[in-house]
């Protein structure tokens, strides 16, 4: 029976090792994790600082996406967290972890979880560049 170990939208630091510990199980032979970390550059421009804004519905939608992915794949457990507010270079913005009996389901579910979070969760990224300009990502 697949389940969701956790789904959090938070301003606190998030860590892939915390999520990995949450999904781990003696019956799971594979744990796959993803950490989406803030880069010091984007399209060749140096990033000075970065923040995310989350819509009030983001937490509930993240829980829904996690449940859907857990139900769709043959996994033991999934967990996902998205941070918002200011995030320092190198820190994680999105982390996901999936445990499964077999590795293919763990990889496939982790890819789907990250894809669906990016597609469905109302969260926005704002970047300030070293050259003084700034942008809301995906909003040309």
């Amino acid at each position: 029976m697949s389940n969701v170990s956790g789904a959090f939208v938070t301003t606190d630091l998030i860590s892939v090792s915390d999520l990995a510990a949450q999904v781990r199980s003696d019956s799971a032979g594979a744990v796959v994790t993803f950490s989406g970390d803030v880069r010091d550059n984007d399209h060749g421009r140096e990033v000075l600082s970065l923040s995310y804004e989350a819509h009030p519905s983001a937490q509930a939608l993240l829980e829904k996406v996690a449940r859907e992915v857990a139900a769709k794949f043959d996994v033991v457990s999934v967990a996902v967290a998205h941070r918002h507010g200011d995030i320092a270079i190198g820190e994680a913005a999105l982390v996901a972890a999936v445990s499964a009996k077999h590795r293919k389901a763990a990889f496939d579910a982790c890819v789907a979880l990250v894809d669906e979070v990016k597609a469905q969760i109302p969260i926005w990224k704002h970047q300030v560049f070293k050259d003084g300009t700034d942008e809301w990502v995906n909003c040309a």
Partner: protein
Amino acid sequence: MSVTVRFFAAARAAAGVNEISMESASAMQILDKAVALHPKLGQVLPQCSYLLNEVSLRDLSVVVTDGSTLDVLPPFAGG
């Protein structure tokens, strides 16, 4: 009573305000009026999606009734 229009992320940056209060009308009419008040919104709105009272709104001819909240969401960019 009136309609609350909330702007998020790039839409808020374009509007220059977090939210505005409008009279009841169709969503399209409300958004047109918002662009008239805050012209920079005109570049962002074509990419936006909308929530009416937290539920996705695709048909902008729907009348937004007094007491409702219309959210303006730019393209998501999580992760």
